[in-house]
């Protein structure tokens, strides 16, 4: 075992982790632990843009952006956080530009902006051009630019170090982080990183679903680790299904395709979004578009031999315009579906895209240990966190904004906290849980295969926890998960070595996925209303009286609902009254 000492340890090197590292690295001794090389993170797959009310191309204001974010999240957004995000968005974009991000430009040389779903002028009057972008590879450019800035600032990376546990110790003031336990993939050795502040930026858990735009590595590690350490997870029932995933594959086709003029059509060639969102049509927020698409298919107006998808029509756009603004996604359509977007419409269907919920934090990024109290020194940012700026449905581009605004904040506050804090001693038994976890997996002599269990989990989640849910389907998911957990207890892995034992990692990751699938299902069961990304067919209306609260779930073996206890946390309002959500 090796012990390392750093003021700040950041877990995860995606957008939020690296944005935090840039700030923290300039203020305190910082290490970034990442299970992937930093440039492999899924931030790089984001395409469309990053919204900020720069008003470079038309009138705009951050206050309108705040309103859109709150309305888009179906009023389950903490309004103070949304204000912070929309206000600091402008600086966040300018920061990136100064770090060198190659944004597309207007003819005058300013950062160009385009339309995006749910972003409107003057509280919903018409779509507004707010998304700053670099072709359809904005996420790629952000990830590269942040990595480049990290190199510039000599940030220390521990690449291919997989964090398995968070070390929390009790102090007279309450629980505080003492460090993390990490596993080095190349050698199979365990390392302890002692730290004054810990920042979690490990991303989402989209891999609980089969059809997903998420990477294979997005297994919710950070959320599961927090949950296992007794911390709550907030709003886990809310998953965003992106309307336009390549049919059958789930690969993302950016909303920018519709922002640039693309139109969704059903088998009758009808522009069906005109019926569901008469004002902004195809640029309605994602939950509405995804539900509309699923509804078209359900009512028999799907396309293809199995009538199981709808079409994204770009054929009326100039090929030169498509090449300039959407080069990558048209290539995806060509490579993976053999469809030429210049002349043929692209088959698309909703794909699991983003976890709105996560580790609850305040606007500093500090993690809540219950509905009232935070743990100073422990931070979370990005998709793993729930600030909550996305509420029950995130607006397009707001994730890239989230990682930049709250990644930066988490980095600054983590470094500041470290300056005033002492190292806490690592308890002798700090590694026990991790060692047990690894040894159990390594010595397991069961008959079940990890891949098969994961596939069954993803199938049941796709079937029962997707765009539409009912009490019956959620209970089915829960009973399936319980059966899968039993099978999981009886697994065997084939690789027993130390070097790059990815077989072992997949087994551990499956454990995380099973746990999070259960958390999501339990939270979904409790929320008996339809709001944003959570659509209950047995409760089709939003119910502000009973459910205008965040759900907070805890690991609690004494609870009757799958060993998960449900509590609530109030939503923070500033000055936006909930209204009916119409577009």
């Amino acid at each position, binding site marked *: 075992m090796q012990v390392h000492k750093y003021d700040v340890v950041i877990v995860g090197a995606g957008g939020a982790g690296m944005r935090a590292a840039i700030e923290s690295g300039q203020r305190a001794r910082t290490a970034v632990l990442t299970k*992937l*090389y930093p*440039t*492999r*993170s*899924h931030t*790089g*797959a984001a395409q469309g843009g990053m919204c900020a009310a720069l008003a470079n191309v038309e009138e705009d204001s951050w206050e309108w952006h705040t309103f859109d974010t709150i309305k888009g999240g179906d009023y389950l957004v903490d309004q103070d956080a949304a204000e912070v995000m929309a206000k600091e968005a402008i600086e966040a*974009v*300018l920061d990136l*530009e*100064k*770090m*060198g991000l*190659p*944004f*597309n*430009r*207007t*003819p*005058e*040389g*300013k950062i160009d902006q385009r339309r995006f779903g749910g972003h409107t002028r003057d509280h919903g009057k018409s779509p507004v051009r707010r998304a700053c972008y*670099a*072709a359809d*590879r904005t996420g*790629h450019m952000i990830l*590269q630019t942040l990595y*480049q*800035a990290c*190199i*510039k600032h000599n940030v220390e990376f521990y690449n291919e170090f997989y964090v398995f546990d968070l070390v929390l110790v009790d102090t007279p003031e309450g629980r505080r982080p003492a460090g993390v336990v990490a596993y080095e993939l*190349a050698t199979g050795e365990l390392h302890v990183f002692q730290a004054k502040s810990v920042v979690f930026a490990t991303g989402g858990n989209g891999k609980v679903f089969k059809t997903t735009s998420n*990477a*294979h*590595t997005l297994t919710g590690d950070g959320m599961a680790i927090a949950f296992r350490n007794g911390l709550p997870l907030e709003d886990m029932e809310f998953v965003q299904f992106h309307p336009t995933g390549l049919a*059958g*594959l789930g*690969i993302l086709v950016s909303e920018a395709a519709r922002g640039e003029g693309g139109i969704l059509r059903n088998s009758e060639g009808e522009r069906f979004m005109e019926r569901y969102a008469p004002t902004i049509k195809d640029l309605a927020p994602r939950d509405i578009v995804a539900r509309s698409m699923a509804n078209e298919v359900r009512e028999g107006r799907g396309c*293809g*031999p*199995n009538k199981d998808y709808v079409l994204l029509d770009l054929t009326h756009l100039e090929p030169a315009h498509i090449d300039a603004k959407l080069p*990558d996604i048209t290539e995806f359509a060509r*490579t*993976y579906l053999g469809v030429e977007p210049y002349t043929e419409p692209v088959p698309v269907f909703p794909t699991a895209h983003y976890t709105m919920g996560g580790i609850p934090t305040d606007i500093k990024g500090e993690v809540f240990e219950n509905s009232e109290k935070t743990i100073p020194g422990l931070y979370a940012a990005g998709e793993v966190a729930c600030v909550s700026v996305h509420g029950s449905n995130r607006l397009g581009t707001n994730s890239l904004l989230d990682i930049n605004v709250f990644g930066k904040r988490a980095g600054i506050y983590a470094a500041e906290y470290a300056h005033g804090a002492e190292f806490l001693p690592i308890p002798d038994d700090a590694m026990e849980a991790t060692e047990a976890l690894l040894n159990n997996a390594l010595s397991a002599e069961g008959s079940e*295969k*990890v*891949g*098969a269990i994961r*596939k069954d989990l993803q199938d049941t989640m796709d079937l029962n926890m997707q765009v539409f849910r009912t009490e019956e389907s959620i209970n089915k998911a829960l009973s399936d998960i319980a059966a899968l957990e039993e099978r999981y207890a009886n697994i065997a*892995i*084939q*690789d027993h*070595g*130390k*070097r*790059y*034992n*990815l*077989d072992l990692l997949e087994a551990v990751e499956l454990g995380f996925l099973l746990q999070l699938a259960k958390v999501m299902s339990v939270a979904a069961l409790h929320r008996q209303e339809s709001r944003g990304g959570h659509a209950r067919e047995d409760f089709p209306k939003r119910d502000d009286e009973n459910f205008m609260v965040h759900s907070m779930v805890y690991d609690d073996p004494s609870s009757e609902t799958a060993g998960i206890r449900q509590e609530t946390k109030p939503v923070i309002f500033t000055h936006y009254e909930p209204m009916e959500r119409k577009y």
Partner: protein
Amino acid sequence: MSTATADKTEENTQAGAIPSFDVTVRVRRYNPEVSEEARWDEFKLTMYGTDRVLDCLHKIKWELDGSLSFRRSCAHGVCGSDAMRINGRNRLACKVLLKDLDLSKPLTIEPIKGLPCEKDLIVDMEPFFQSYREIMPFLVNVDNEPERERYQSQEDRARFDDTTKCILCAACTSSCPVFWTDGQYFGPAAIVNAHRFIFDSRDQAGDMRLEILNDKEGVWRCRTTFNCTEACPRGIEITKAIAEVKKAALTRSM
């Protein structure tokens, strides 16, 4: 592809079903914990028309041999994890569709060449990233920071657009015969990323990068074999970018 139709099984001929076919995959294996020598393993798989090489590897790992190790993440060609040699060519496993390959012969999969193999298809990427770090891959501008963004014309932005697409997968560098010799050459990827900043109108350290690449292991070792351009999964015109860097280095010196 001829086998694809020949091996089509009966039950899959109904409308709407995806045709399946048999594939033989030869994978180069190396695990010093088991043996000091590398070896070839052969697997016979039934795959489908929409499957990619990465799906073959996953099928092997998840159903046949869990010890097979390879890196992958996004699975659609933007993260750059799974560069490998597929039938002798450097490709991303997630971007090669089986239907585009000649499956009458076994499909051979090896780690990318020239970087030290650590296990199966996993190579040590450190030397690659070291070269990347050496060319100062970050914007340098010592002028006073403007309050708003730095302006850049659309033409200036277009000047380096091609080289911003790089995902650092190492397919180019590990396809370069000069790099294979001794790994001392900076390699196409580092030059591409230097190009991205040298030709960015906002940057002021172009001269320093040109000086770095004037090294005896720098741009002048490029023999314009075009292997890198052929290998790039992002379609970057790498050899052209290297030529532009050479030209800039000459112009600067003369």
